[in-house]
Structure formats: structure tokens, C-alpha cells
């Protein structure tokens, strides 16, 4: 029985990979994300300018041969700042979302699967955390722990997991009443096997969708946190902070909003195409088609 499942699992995985490879959009998304990651890792060596060096006499200039994406109001090269920003933003996006994903999925699955009193206590804890004033919480964090990047990830993850947990729990609740889960329970499979074998894989669709949606919102949330004094400090840049500064001057210097906005959008598109591709590829029922 168990070897059977394993073999099937392997073929499912290679099947999924094969299907994913056929999905052109998903592959394009993956390629974009890969290139972006490589660029952001190599930024210190390939950036055209220094991210902090100002040229106050130059000021804000539109894209030109010297500055491909223009310069900001302090005369700093926009391309360089976006490149450095991607290091921070991608890191925040990936790590904070992973934190949220890990806690949220575990919490939601356990609550939904256990049901009864455990479920209601776990979900009431989520309610309490939801209701607490987030800005005060962040202000306190900055004061108690200073301003480490790690704290930034934890702070964002700590907020984002709540919604994740609720969505997963809802999903688990509805899956758990399906026949195959009831059957699995009846034959006495241990709960963790049911969770890992049936519940999580079947909730994968919403998990992937929500994850791809969380990454950009986390990237933007980072700029609010640096407003409260947590996380990065000028002259460092992030996409979130570039966008929020860009808004203020969107009529005068539109390129300061458009380029960081564009790169964030492209990232999100890629994430979504890849996410959809993954979802379709992993869908156990789609394989029958």
C-alpha cells in the first residue's frame, strides 16, 4: 500500500513538472523571476552608479542616455536605486511571506482539522490578534528590539499569517467533509498523514493564489513600516519606499512612480503566472484530462 502511494506520488510530481514546462506563461514568469533574482544578487557589482551618491545640481531628470530610468530629486540614479531596492523588496517579499505561509497554513489546517474546542480557541486567538492596533505594535517593536531586518520579516509575517490561517481553515473545513477524507479517517490513518496527504494538497489552489497575492502587499507594507521607523533607513531604497515617494511627485516627475511601479507589477504578473501554472500542474484532478 505504502509503496504504491509513493510511486504514484513520484509520478504525480514528474507529471506536474512536465505540465508546468508546457505552460509557456508560467515558464516566462519563472524566467523573469530568475533573472530578477540574479540581477538583485549581482547588483553591488553591476549597478551603474552608487545608490547614495547625490547630485544636487542635477536634481530630478527624465530618462536619458546617462541615467536610463532618470534621476530622483536628489539627483540619484533611479535604475541603481531600483536594483538595490529589489534586493530588499524581494527578500522581504519572500521571507515575510514564507513566515506567514508557514504559520498560517499550519494554524489553519490544525484548527480546521481538529475542529471543536481546539478550533474555536485557535480561531479566537486569531480574532484577538486581528483586532490589536498594528501601528502601536510596530512602534513598540522598534523600541524594544531596535531595527533589524529580521524583525521586519517577523513583524510582517506576524500580521499576514492571520488572513492566511482563516482562508486555509475555511478550505480545510470544506475538504474534510469530502468522502475521501472520511474514508481515510475510517481506515484509521493518523491525523498528520491525512493533513499532509489530503488536506494540504487539496487546499493548494487557494494557498498558491493567496501567496502570490501576499508577496506584493508585503512589499508595499514594508514602506509603511519604514515610515514608522522599522526596517530600512534612507539612503537605502526599496520598491515600496520608491513608490511611496514617487506618488508625491507623480505629476512633476512621473518616471519616479512609473518605473518602480512597473517592476513591481511585472514581478506580480510573473508570480501569478507561475502560481497559476503550479496550481494547474499540481491539480490532481486535472491530470485525468
Amino acid at each position, binding site marked *: 500500500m505504502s509503496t504504491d502511494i509513493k510511486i504514484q506520488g513520484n509520478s504525480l510530481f514528474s507529471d506536474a513538472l512536465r505540465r508546468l514546462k508546457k505552460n509557456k506563461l508560467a515558464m516566462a514568469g519563472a524566467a523573469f523571476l530568475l533573472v530578477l533574482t540574479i540581477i538583485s544578487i549581482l547588483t553591488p557589482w553591476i549597478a551603474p552608479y552608487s545608490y547614495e551618491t547625490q547630485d544636487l545640481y542635477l536634481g530630478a531628470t527624465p530618462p536619458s542616455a546617462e541615467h536610463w530610468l532618470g534621476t530622483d530629486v536628489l539627483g540619484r540614479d533611479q535604475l541603481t536605486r531600483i536594483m538595490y531596492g529589489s534586493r530588499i523588496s524581494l527578500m522581504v517579499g519572500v521571507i515575510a511571506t514564507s513566515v506567514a505561509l508557514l504559520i498560517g497554513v499550519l494554524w489553519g489546517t490544525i484548527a480546521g482539522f481538529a*475542529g*471543536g*474546542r481546539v*478550533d*474555536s480557541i485557535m*480561531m*479566537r486567538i486569531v*480574532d*484577538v490578534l*486581528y*483586532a*490589536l*492596533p498594528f*501601528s*502601536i*505594535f510596530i*512602534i*513598540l517593536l522598534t*523600541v524594544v528590539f531596535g531595527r533589524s531586518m529580521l524583525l521586519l520579516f517577523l513583524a510582517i509575517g506576524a500580521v499576514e499569517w*492571520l*488572513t492566511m490561517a*482563516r*482562508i486555509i*481553515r*475555511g*478550505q480545510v*473545513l*470544506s475538504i474534510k*467533509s469530502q468522502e475521501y477524507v472520511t474514508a481515510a479517517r475510517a481506515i484509521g490513518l493518523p491525523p498528520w498523514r491525512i493533513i499532509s496527504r489530503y488536506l494540504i494538497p487539496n487546499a493548494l*489552489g*487557494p494557498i*498558491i*493564489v*493567496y501567496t*502570490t*497575492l501576499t508577496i*506584493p*502587499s508585503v512589499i*508595499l507594507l514594508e514602506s509603511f513600516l519604514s515610515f514608522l521607523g522599522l526596517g530600512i533607513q534612507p539612503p537605502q531604497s526599496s520598491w515600496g519606499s520608491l*513608490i*511611496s515617494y514617487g*506618488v508625491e511627485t*507623480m*505629476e512633476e516627475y512621473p518616471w519616479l*512612480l512609473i518605473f518602480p*511601479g512597473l517592476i*513591481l*507589477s511585472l514581478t*506580480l*504578473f510573473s508570480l*501569478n503566472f507561475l502560481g497559476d501554472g503550479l*496550481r*494547474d500542474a499540481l*491539480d490532481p*484532478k*486535472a491530470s485525468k484530462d
Partner: protein
Amino acid sequence: MLSYIVKRVLAAIPVLFLVVLITFILVRIAPGGPFDEERSVPPQVLENLNKRYNLDLPVHEQFFSYVGNLLQGDFGPSFKYPNRSVTEIISTGAPVTIELGLYALIFAMILGCSAGVFAALRPNSWRDYSAMSTAMIGICVPSFVLGPLLVLIFGIYLGWLPVSGWGYSPGDKILPALTLGAAYAAYLARLSRGGMLEVLNQDYIRTARAKGLPEWQVVIKHGLRGGLTPVIAFLGPAAAGLLSGSFVVETIYQIPGIGRFFLQAAFNRDYTMILGTTIFFAFLIILFNLITDILLVWLNPKLRSEVFNQ
């Protein structure tokens, strides 16, 4: 069913109490007090100000007297706006925020769900891509960008709609609702597409199709019920997020809602106002989560016995 609701309402009491307790502790240990300003207040004046708000008492006594007043429905006077009580400010601001949130939610539901279902019917077609791309733009453009952008286009360049205000003219509620709802519309589009795709592959849908039912009947009668489950699960958090997150939109459009106070109170260290607005939003969150849970069960009859008899 009824006993379930009663149980949940009773469970809300410890939740609210914990929220009050933790918030009370958080605001007290946050650096800076309500009377710290650029011009530092002379010590003897500060002493009198503290006395005015009972801040000279030991913290636990402050807490119990606050909770005591709370039980009588008194949220205390605001520190920042001393001649208004927190109750007054919430009761004038809340209806505005709720109205705004409602419009935004309706907008997000209609646009988001129809786009999502529309896309799911022909997955991987141009329809799907265009609907989903639009949705993604909605997510990429946060309200602090979308708001000013909409104001500039419709308020200033075209001059079609008012740039700010609430209730002065019929048009002034359109832009705020669009701005607030856009991101949620996008989320809902994604979630409903995902949910629908999931369901449309299920056996009972195949059966329905095989029976030769018209496609729209299959979708509406059988598909929506299951396909919108993730949407419904998201509605609770979404409604709460719309309300507590409305401060950006309220600031951009100068709307006299409670969202502005919620954020400002934290910056002002307006202790009573932070607690008051937090309790208010906590209440709403609990309410929406309850409604969501009831809806989820209602949509999935198999769950009924499981959940309601716990």
C-alpha cells in the same frame, strides 16, 4: 444553529476582554505619552494634565476603572479632543466608514467575482488573461497610489467628480469607494477564479453537465456554491480590512470617518481613543468572522452537524 450563534457571541466576551487588556498594556509601554509635544510641557502642568485623566493612579487601578466605565458604555474622554467623548467620535465617524466600506465591498464583490467566474469559464483564453491582468493591476496599484491618480484624472483633469468631501454632492462617494474597493476586487477575482476552477473539475459538475443542463445553470446552481467558498472565507477578513484600512482613503478624500482616528490615535498616543477604536474594530471583526463562518457552513451542508454540534 441558534445555540451555535449564542456560543460564538459568548466566546466574543473573552476575546474582547483580551483585546482590551493587551491593547491597554501595549499603549502604556509604547514610548511617548499623550502630552508629549514639540514644546515640552512644564513638569507642574504635566502633573495636572495627568491628574485630569487619572494617569497619576497606579496602572492596574486605571485599567479597572477603565473597564468599569466601559461596562457602563463609557469609553472616556479623548485625550486629543478633550471636549468630545470617544463614544461621540466613534458614533459620528463609524456610520461614514461603514457606508464607505459597504460601497467598496459591493463594488469589489460585483466586479471581482464576475471577473473571476468569467475568467474561470474559459481558462487560459484571452478572456481569462485580460480579466486576470486587470485584476492584478488592481493589486499592484495600492490605494495610496490609486487614490491620487483617480483624483487627478477625474477630479482635476476631467473635472467630473469632486476631489474630496463626503455627502456634499452625489458624486463624492464614487471615487473613495472605487479606491478602497479596487484591491479587494482584484483579490476576489483571483480567489473566485481559483475556487471556480477547482469546482468545475469536480465530479458533480461533470454529472450536471452530462445531464445536459445549460452551462449557465451549471455555473450558477452548482458551481457558485462551492466555487465561492474561498471568496466567502476571505470576506470576513476583507470586510474587517476595508473598515480598519480605510484611513488611507479617508485621508486622501477628506472623509470624516473613524479610520482616520484609528491611525491618528496611535500616533497621538490618545489612550482612550486607541482603546475605543480598537474595541469598535474588534467587535466588527468578530461579527464579520461569525457571519463568514455561518455562511461557510450554510454553503456546505455536510459541515452543518460537525460545526453546530460542537
